[in-house]
C-alpha cells in the first residue's frame, strides 16, 4: 500500500513537470498552430543557464528567477527573428526549422557544457519537506512550485488586460487586430512565456533526471502525450493531461512489477514507459484527436 501511494506521489511530481512542458506546447499551438519540437531542448538549455548562474555564485532561487527571465527573452527573440518571417511558409518548412532549433540547442549545450552528466541540486530542505514514506522533499517541492506557476499563469490570463489580449489574439488574430491588439507581439510574448514555463520544468526536473543535453527528450514525449490527452488546444486540459499521464505511467509500471512478482512473467515495467507514451500519442491522435476533454465551446447559431 505504501509503495502504491509512493508511486502515485512520484507520478504526480513527474506529472507536474509534464504539465508544464505540455502547457508550453499548447500555448504556442493555440496561437500559431505550430508544434514546437524544440520545446524540450529549449527547456534543457534554460536549465543549463541556471546551472551556469549557480556556478558563478548565485543562490538557487536567484539563478532560477534569472534563468526564467532569460528564457523569456530567448523565446521572444526566437519568435521575432526566426519564426516571424516564416509565418506563411508551408508546414514542412516550419517543422524543419523546429528540428533545426532542436539540433542547435542540443549541440550548443553539449559544446559549451559538455555531454557529461552533471548533478543538479534540489532547493528543498530535506528535514522539513515531504511526508515520510509517501512523498520525498524534492517531489513535494516540484508539485508546489509548478502549482504556483500554473496559478500565476491562470491569474495572468484570466484577470489581466494583457492576458486577455493574448487570449483574443490566439482565438482570432484577424479580429484581435480590429480591436487594436498588436497580434505579432502577442505571439512573441506567448513564445516568451512558453519558454519560461519550459525553464521552470527543466530546472525542477534536473535534480531527478540529472543535467545533460539529452535530459528532456523523454520528457518532451510525455508532454506531447499529456497535451494530446488534454486536447492540444486546451491549456487547462494540458495541465490535467500532465498529471494523468504522470500517474498513469507509474501505475502501468507498478502493475507490471506486481504481475512480475506474482507470476514471474515480465510484461511491462519501467523500461517501457516511453513506449506507453508513444502509444498514448498515436492512440489519441488517431482515435480522439480532440483529447479526453474535447473542447467545450458552446455555440449557438
Amino acid at each position, binding site marked *: 500500500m505504501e509503495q502504491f501511494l509512493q508511486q502515485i506521489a512520484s507520478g504526480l511530481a513527474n506529472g507536474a513537470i509534464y504539465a508544464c512542458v505540455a502547457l508550453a506546447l499548447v500555448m504556442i499551438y493555440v496561437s500559431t498552430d505550430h508544434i514546437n519540437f524544440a520545446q524540450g531542448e529549449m527547456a534543457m538549455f534554460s536549465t543549463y543557464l541556471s546551472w551556469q548562474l549557480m556556478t558563478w555564485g548565485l543562490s538557487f532561487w536567484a539563478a532560477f528567477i534569472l534563468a526564467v527571465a532569460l528564457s523569456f527573452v530567448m523565446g521572444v527573440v526566437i519568435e521575432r527573428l526566426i519564426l516571424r518571417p516564416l509565418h506563411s511558409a508551408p508546414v514542412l518548412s516550419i517543422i524543419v526549422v523546429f528540428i533545426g532549433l532542436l539540433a542547435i540547442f542540443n549541440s550548443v549545450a553539449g559544446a559549451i557544457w559538455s555531454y557529461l552528466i552533471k548533478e543538479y541540486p534540489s532547493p528543498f530542505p530535506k528535514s522539513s519537506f515531504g511526508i515520510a514514506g509517501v512523498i520525498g522533499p524534492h517531489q513535494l517541492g516540484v508539485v508546489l512550485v509548478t502549482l504556483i506557476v500554473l496559478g500565476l499563469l491562470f491569474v495572468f490570463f484570466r484577470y489581466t488586460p494583457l492576458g486577455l489580449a493574448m*487570449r483574443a489574439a490566439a482565438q482570432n488574430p*484577424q479580429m484581435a*487586430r*480590429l480591436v*487594436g491588439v498588436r497580434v505579432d507581439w502577442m505571439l512573441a510574448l506567448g513564445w516568451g512565456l512558453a519558454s519560461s514555463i519550459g525553464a521552470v520544468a527543466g530546472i525542477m526536473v534536473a535534480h531527478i533526471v540529472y543535467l545533460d543535453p539529452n535530459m528532456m527528450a523523454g520528457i518532451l514525449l510525455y508532454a506531447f502525450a499529456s497535451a494530446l490527452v488534454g486536447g492540444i488546444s486546451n491549456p487547462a486540459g494540458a495541465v490535467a493531461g500532465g498529471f494523468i499521464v504522470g500517474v498513469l505511467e507509474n501505475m502501468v509500471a507498478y502493475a507490471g512489477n506486481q504481475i512480475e512478482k506474482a507470476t514471474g512473467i515480465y510484461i511491462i515495467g519501467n523500461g517501457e514507459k516511453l513506449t506507453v507514451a508513444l502509444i498514448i500519442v498515436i492512440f489519441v491522435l488517431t482515435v480522439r484527436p480532440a483529447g479526453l476533454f474535447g473542447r467545450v465551446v458552446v455555440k*449557438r447559431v
Partner: protein
Amino acid sequence: MAALLEVSGLKAFYGQTQSLYDVGFDIPTGGITTLLGANGAGKTTTLRAICNMVRTDGTIRFDGKNIRGMATEEIVRQRIAHVPEGRGTFTTLTVDENLRIAAYTRRDKQGVKDELDRVFAYFPRLKERIQQQAGTLSGGEQQMLAIARALMLKPRLMLLDEPSFGLAPLIVQEIFRILRRINEEEKVSILLVEQNAALALDLATHAYVLETGKVVMSGPSDVVKNDENVRKSYLGY
C-alpha cells in the same frame, strides 16, 4: 463640412486577383454614409481595404493623414472601429471580456468602467448577459456585442459590415435605431455596408453605389433613393 475619410484611386487585391478598381469617396464628419451594391461588387473589400486587411494601392486619408499601408492594429488605434461581417465576436470569451479587450491598452480603471456603463446604456441586454460566453448569445445579441465593442474603442469612424445579416426584422430595427443614436449622441461618423438598401438609405445621409469594383453613382441618399436604376436594382420597385 470637411471630410473625415477621403478615399481616392483605391485598388485592392486578393493574391493576384484585383477586386477594386479606382474606388473613391468621401465620408463627411458626423454623417452616416452607405455603400450599396450587389454581391461581389466590392463593398466588404472596401471596408477591409480601409483597415489594411487586403493588399491595396491608392490613398486613404483619415483626418488629413494618409493611413494606407499602416498595420491594421495601428489604424484601429487612430480610432477607426471596424465591425466585421458575420458577428465578429470572440466566441470563447465572455461578454465582459469581449468589451474589455477593446480597452486593454488603457490604464485608467475608472475610465474603462465609465465607458462600459455608457455602452450598456445603449445595449442593456448585454449587461444582463455580462458573464456569458459570447458564443452562447443569440445572433442579434452577438451583433450588438460587436457594435458595443467597437464603441469601446471610442471611435471617430465606425465601419459596419452587414449588421442586419441573418437577423429578424424586429432586431434589425432595434439595431438601426441604436446606430442612429450612436451617430447623433456620440458624434461617431458611420460607414455602413448593407444588402438591405432600403434600410440603409433610410439611415444614411450619403450613398455610394459600387458595381464590380468601381463607384458608379453617388449623392445624398434622398437623391440616390429616387434614382431609376437604384430603385430597379436594389430597392425592387
